[in-house]
């Protein structure tokens, strides 16, 4: 097993992990990022545009990805799981497992020929299941690194990719590889998943084809998305009437998620604004409990959306069903006019799901987490990036839902704390 020494081990390469790595590298220390997916970039690289500036997400994320991968003091392991992290006398020892891509990375020239000839289509995870890709493929256009991954479970072993590869680097027998990482400190930036589509049974999220997740909506709105247009999945129709259901997975004791996820109001408003630009004749309605536009420039953004004619309706959606043409039907209770519960029909419904931690298992580290699985910050009013373990820091959504600007601030904060910690232990040793 090979061993790599570094100053800081960063788990997760979303915007939090990348920003922390860049700040650490710029300050003269070394960092290793470990990422379980085949590309760095996290959730942010899959978003359409970002609030409140409406920059395209790629435009902000790709340079951070490129900067991390080019940084002389940052090393990145993608498609790699963390098996365990142990605290030892002089820092931390981690075992990571590099999963087989079934491609010899040192030889691959990213020519995509394997992808072209592969006869097997599989659901594209990057498009959250909306599009398809080949069983061997580069994860997405601006992925880093640009190595294809072979989906072992779907591959039919036809050998087409191996025959076409000009560098002979398809290796069907590639095995996982274990690597030791020794570091002085650790940053956990493992991020989030959105609440599962079936979390709220009444919304039938996994059963109704035209009830989609907010991340699927992000892909439909992205300029390089799966269809190149905003189409509804059941029949490819351009929707005339689109509804957003707020708090579909937050502030809801019935599904065990009572907290507010902080970002859903704003991303729904953003998506509604993008939709209204894309489909100017469509009706867009946001059903909400409270609009929480609390960040810098957010209230102005909300006001702009109202001025654009987006309907904001104070109502809790009780249930979603559909008619025979797969048009979703929402049962709602409007607060404002005191009318009786009513049923309204839309062409497509987006669930504004909340954020849940991506993992509750921290590789054997005895991190204190709260009842929902987010990492506790025991020094909230002194050094909020610190965890209960000396030398382990947290950045981004791993400690609780937050938006991108707040996440970037936390990454900088974790970076300075970790740099100062490493400097102090180096002096001590």
């Amino acid at each position, binding site marked *: 097993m090979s061993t790599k020494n570094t100053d800081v081990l960063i788990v997760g390469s979303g915007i939090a992990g990348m920003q922390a790595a860049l700040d650490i590298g710029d300050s003269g220390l070394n960092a290793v990022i470990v990422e379980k997916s085949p590309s760095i970039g996290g959730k942010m690289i899959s978003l359409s545009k970002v609030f409140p500036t409406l920059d*395209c997400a790629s435009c902000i994320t790709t340079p951070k990805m490129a900067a991390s991968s080019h940084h002389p003091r940052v090393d990145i392991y993608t498609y790699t799981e963390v098996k365990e992290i142990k605290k030892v006398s002089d820092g931390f020892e981690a075992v990571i497992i590099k999963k087989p891509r079934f491609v010899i990375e040192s030889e691959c020239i990213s020519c995509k020929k394997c992808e072209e000839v592969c006869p097997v289509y599989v659901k594209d995870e990057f498009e959250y299941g909306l599009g398809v890709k080949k069983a061997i493929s580069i994860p997405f256009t601006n992925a880093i690194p640009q190595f294809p991954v072979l989906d072992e479970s779907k591959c039919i072993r036809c050998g087409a990719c191996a025959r076409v590869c000009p560098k002979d680097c398809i290796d069907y027998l590639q095995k996982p590889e274990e690597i030791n990482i020794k570091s002085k400190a650790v940053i956990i930036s493992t991020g989030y998943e959105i609440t599962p589509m079936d979390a709220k049974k009444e919304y039938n999220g996994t059963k109704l084809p035209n009830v989609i997740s907010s991340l699927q909506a992000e892909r439909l709105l992205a300029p390089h998305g799966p269809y190149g247009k905003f189409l509804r999945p059941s029949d490819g129709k351009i929707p005339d009437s689109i509804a957003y259901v707020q708090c579909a997975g937050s502030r809801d004791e019935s599904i065990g998620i009572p907290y507010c996820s902080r970002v859903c109001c704003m991303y729904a408003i953003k998506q509604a604004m993008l939709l209204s630009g894309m489909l100017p004749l469509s009706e867009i309605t946001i059903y909400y409990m409270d609009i929480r536009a609390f960040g810098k420039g*957010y209230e102005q953004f909300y006001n702009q959306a109202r001025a654009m004619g987006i309907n904001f309706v104070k109502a809790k959606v009780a249930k979603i069903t559909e008619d025979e043409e797969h048009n979703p039907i929402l049962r709602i209770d409007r607060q404002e006019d005191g009318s009786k519960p009513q049923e309204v029909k839309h062409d497509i419904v987006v669930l504004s799901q909340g954020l849940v931690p991506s993992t509750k298992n921290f590789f054997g580290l005895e991190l204190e987490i709260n009842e929902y699985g987010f990492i506790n910050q025991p020094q909230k009013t002194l050094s909020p990036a610190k965890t209960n373990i000396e030398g382990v820091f947290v950045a981004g959504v791993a400690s609780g839902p937050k938006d991108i600007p707040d996440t970037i601030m936390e990454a900088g904060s974790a970076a300075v704390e970790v740099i100062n910690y490493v400097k102090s232990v180096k002096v001590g040793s």
Partner: protein
Amino acid sequence: MEENKIYEKEHTINENYRQKPKVAVYVCHCGGNISDVVDVKKVAEELSKYHDVAISREYAFMCSSTGQDYIVEDIQKNGINRVVIAACSPALHELTFRGALQRAGLNPYLYEHVNIREQVSWVHKNDKEGATKKAISLVKAGVEKVLRQDPLNSIRVEAVKTVAVIGGGVSGMRAALSVAKNGLNAVIIEKSDKLGGKLNRSGNVYPTGEKAISVAENLSKEVLSSDKIKVYFNSEITFVSGYVGNFQINVKRKNGEYEKIKAGAIIIATGFDNYKPYEGEYGYGLNKFVLTLPEFIEALEKSGPGKFNYNGKDINSVSFIHCVGSRQIDGIDKPGKNGKINEYCSRVCCTSLINTANNLKTKYPDVEVFDIYTDIRTYGMDHESYYKEASKNDVIFFRRPLEERPSVEFDGAKIKIKTKDVLTMNEDMEIETDMVVLGVGMVPNDITDLVEYMKLPKSSDGFLQEVHPKLRPVEVANNGIFIAGTAQGPMDILESLQASNTAAVKAAALLASGDIPLDPFVAVVDEDKCTGCEKCPKECSYSGALTMIEKEVNGKKKKVAYVNAALCKGCGACAAVCEPRAINVAGWSLDQFDAMVEAIAKE
């Protein structure tokens, strides 16, 4: 002013730029942001026929690793010595691509960034043909410009390894501590006689429930015991001069003495002020039982056990009103002294107010509590539980429509609040109450002088403006100046500390290497051509950047213009008045502009 040492570092590894120009043109699709409107293939094809262009390509994302690898490969293997990229705004990626040139061994300034997104595809969505034509013209102009480009070297200035932190509240203290632990010196300049800022108050803070004052004390103990931090109490800043790496802050101390503080970077942590309601705003100032939230928190802490008594009156009911001085709407709310309304949300008041309502209920369970709001924004991880607790505590909530305002009226000793309530089908409600508490928002502290000394940019909400909320969230446009905490906008304590730490890491990275690279886009004087007419220094707005000196040129003593490269901002005002074209901004010479205009006009 002392002359500072200026270093020059050679960027160019090989001398490839001296050879016959071989330009590479790259046209970026920006996902579909550009290619949905502009025919990028046609642009690349047209440019491949243009003079001196050796390679012309288009690609989905030039900023991605693959895109950048094309550039590196073309330079290293195909002998490219000048590069033009047609993509987004240079504000986003000019630095990204200069980095790629540098990695490939080419001088990073032999590069031209043509904006065909903001200036073409986004503004000509309905005219694809016209947009493509315009893109072609602009890229050709870019080629003309880069052909006349000289290799440049960044200017390097020596940096003072001290960070000056303005303001000694939680943000300033956190920033100073992190900077000091990093090995730099920190100086805190505080106008009052103690550290802690707004936390030197009564009451507790969410979400930890600690006493506000002990939060301040925990940090100030660390600050005062650090031998790397010097605190100037009772100090007023009278002027700020200099530039990144070498700022000078003039401070007037309480004893009337002046002192000059030298710093390589400045962190502004001047914090916020509480919104002050005008007289009559919800009855404020007309009745002593209408209080702001901070006033109420103090009153609550001072009141004794048993019954809640304030100003000689037993208080049996308290009504809280949200969004006072925040989320204001034009035409509904009265503008402030600056003639503007506060459109922004102050972020912290909902949780702070509900926390206080819960504290009131804990101390005096029999007091009736009413809460008039339009949206409850208890957004944080633990904040929603305060809202839930308030409901359990029987706080009675009234939800006003977004564009309606409650009224506060006085009838003898009685206070009446009238409001519409969405929760009861928009009924008009009347609440009789003994006390009204106004949930006042945050406004920026008055730092007019600092803004003027440092020429700081402000956002429309009056707080300081960062360069970009995601790319450069704690930097202002002025090099070497950072923002920490609520000087930037409303934040709670935890968020302020995180932001302050981010300011600290950026300041520390800036000063880590001892000298700082600056952009070379400054005025340069062709001393042969300079006639010594003295017109240009009069146009210069940056004190000390452009002066006249007596100098020997070609064996003759003559008067010529002289540029201090560290102070020059490259604005070009000097070039505009120079008839013989003796002064030019490096990288933006008039000859380059001539050629660009010609290329565009030729079409």
